[in-house]
């Protein structure tokens, strides 16, 4: 596609539920990044994929968070047993090998009630 696409744009879920957030990167981009942006803060790194494998998952806050990228393109961020503190905008970005920048999607705003 022309840009990084994230779905859904907004998601409201109840505390304790499971959610999946999807990221469709720019075609041909091998690197994919997930960030979390809490209200009034800058984005914080969660996880980085190079191809199908997670090259760096040091930013995942706990084991309720998991992400996959099975075919090296679309990625899904999965959050189990959601908590109110998980409410944030989840941003995805992709970059090409040797590219000069990462390109961001418009994010998914997750609200846990």
């Amino acid at each position, binding site marked *: 596609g022309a840009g990084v696409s994230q779905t859904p744009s907004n998601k409201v879920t109840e505390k304790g539920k499971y959610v999946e957030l999807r990221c469709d990167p720019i075609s041909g981009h091998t690197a994919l990044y997930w960030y979390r942006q809490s209200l009034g*803060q800058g984005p*914080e790194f969660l996880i*980085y994929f190079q191809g199908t494998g997670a090259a760096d998952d040091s930013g995942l806050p706990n084991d309720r968070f998991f992400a996959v990228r099975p075919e090296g393109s679309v990625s899904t961020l999965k959050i189990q047993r959601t908590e109110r503190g998980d409410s944030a905008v989840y941003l995805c*970005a992709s970059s090409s090998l040797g590219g000069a*920048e990462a390109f*961001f*999607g418009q994010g998914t*705003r997750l609200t846990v009630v």
Partner: protein
Amino acid sequence: AQTVTQSQPEMSVQEAETVTLSCTYDTSENNYYLFWYKQPPSRQMILVIRQEAYKQQNATENRFSVNFQKAAKSFSLKISDSQLGDTAMYFCAFGGSQGTYKYIFGTGTRLKVLA
């Protein structure tokens, strides 16, 4: 670990005037990149300007320029001839070392351009 600090939570500027946003950072690395991103209400992060640490010359992109002081670990953004469309959150980011975009972002500066 790297840190990025933006000490101006909010700023305003009159249309057509010039404004400077401040950013300081800390790192022990020698080769890295610094970025300024704009985030309008649409939430999408848009790259404004990029600076390679090994380059002494300050980066410029049309109305946007930076003052990069490597020894002082300072990276400010100057916006000339401010336009209403420049109203947004601006984030300074450290990244690009080791070939990845595992960015470290500051907390942002909310810029409002006044008509």
